[in-house]
């Protein structure tokens, strides 16, 4: 756990050996760990560690809508509440939800909505609570990824999973999976999410400077990274069912 005193940006974001500051190659993902079914009270839940990001997601629903007037007669509604813990960032965040948290909540909602069959649940709501306990860049992508897992864990019918990653540009070079420092000090940031059922982008944001050629290249690289993340999600879901199976077997043995 590195304790830094000043939140300064380095002049260069590549080391002399051509690696990124955290030792990664240009298109290497940070270590990712996902687990589902981690919270007892929720209908579905997931936990994710992605680099130093540590994020919990919980799903409640389908359930009655509060306040009532938000309910829709012809379909269910999806509501996502993204929050960061005060201590999840370098400078303590104020406890009240900020504009950025509301924005990301909306972004993640729009990302997940296309994979759900909300028309099957008129008058109800699905609520997804995402709590970032530790943050290090790319939390909107990590949150989308872990929220999709929590929905799957809740057994809610889905067209497919959703995976997300932030591409970027630092020191003139395109890179995959921006870290916190690369996000702040870099030249461009392109978070995107894919809905696997149609292989289209459900999240796409871009801020920075790129020409068209770079942008096109970025999209190709994104696809590669998204494939890897999808694999890890599927592993996490499989692992739960293997665990359950083994518990049953264990139960039988013990019995």
């Amino acid at each position, binding site marked *: 756990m590195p304790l830094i005193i000043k939140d300064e940006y380095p002049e260069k974001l590549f080391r002399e050996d051509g690696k990124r500051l955290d030792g990664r190659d240009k298109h290497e993902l940070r270590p990712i760990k996902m687990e589902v079914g981690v919270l007892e009270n929720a209908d579905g839940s997931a936990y994710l560690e992605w680099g130093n990001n540590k994020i919990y997601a919980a799903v409640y629903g389908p359930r009655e809508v509060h306040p009532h007037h938000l309910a829709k007669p012809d379909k269910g509604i999806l509501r996502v509440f993204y929050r960061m813990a005060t201590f999840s960032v370098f400078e303590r965040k104020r406890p009240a939800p900020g*504009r950025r948290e*509301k*924005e990301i909540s*909306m972004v993640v909602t*729009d990302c997940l*909505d*296309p994979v759900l069959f909300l028309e099957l649940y008129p008058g109800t709501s699905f609520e997804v609570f995402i709590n970032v306990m530790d943050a290090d860049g790319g939390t909107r992508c990590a949150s989308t990824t872990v929220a999709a897992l929590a929905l799957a864990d809740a057994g809610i019918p889905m067209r497919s999973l959703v995976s997300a990653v932030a591409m970027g540009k630092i020191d003139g070079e395109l890179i995959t999976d921006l870290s916190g420092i690369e996000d702040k000090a870099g030249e461009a940031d*392109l978070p995107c999410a894919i*809905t696997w059922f*149609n*292989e*289209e*982008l*459900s*999240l*796409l*944001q*871009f*801020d*920075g*400077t*790129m*020409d*068209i050629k770079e*942008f*096109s290249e970025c*999209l190709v690289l994104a*696809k590669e990274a998204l494939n890897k993340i999808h694999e890890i999600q599927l592993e996490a879901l499989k692992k739960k069912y293997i665990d359950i199976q083994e518990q049953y077997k264990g139960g039988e043995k013990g019995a």
Partner: protein
Amino acid sequence: MMNIKRVISTIEKNYILSNLKKGERIDGRGLWDYRDWTVKCDVITSAEGSSEVTLGDTKVITGLKYEVGPPFPDLPNEGVCTFMAELLPLASPLFERGPPDEQSIELARVVDRGIRHADCVQTKKLCIKENEMVYILFVDIYVINYSGNLIDAGGISALSALISSQIPEGKWVDGNVEWTGNYLTGETIVNELPMVVTYGKIGDMIFLDPSLPEELVCDGMLSISVTENKLASIQKSGTATFSMEEIEMLVKKSMELAKKIIKELNLWQYKR
């Protein structure tokens, strides 16, 4: 721009969609046509810069005010330029009173990001004295009549308020700001002219500059901000998804369109 509190009938949506499939729009435009633009600057006496922009029946008034204050510690020699938007209830029965809702915040944010990443506002020129005193510009966008595509109208309006601005020039003398009697104008403050271009998507149909009925029924919108030869920002809203090929096509189209519109409107004519 999706949280409109109006129930649109499926019939209306299907009607618009089936026309789009024939390449036709309900107001007679082609898929890639803008509605008519008008720009008037210096319309507000109390503001240091202002503009009134219409895009079809959509009408926004933007004003610029300034304050001076200490810079952010990590940018000691740069001024600040902030954007705010308000969807006045006067502008539409769809807008509600109350604190800024998601739609207003998103409008301001998309306009802000489109301008921020485009080397447009020369924040270093907005410094009076490094570490001590800089200008803070407030570019506030008010929607007077809402008829779809507030983002593009808001973007041009913010840009023209900046270009037409005239801000008293301050000098740092003995620890205080002294006013020289001269002015900073748009010529000094503004460099690149970025433009946001917004598309709607219904089903698998994509089209430029959504009108109000189109905006109300569409699955999502995509706003792309570009300068002459660079991409500056992209914002997707709503639940539409876009294939990678569509995205690439729209980025290219935005560059062509922006070049054309910026030339037509000739915003530099409003500098003072």
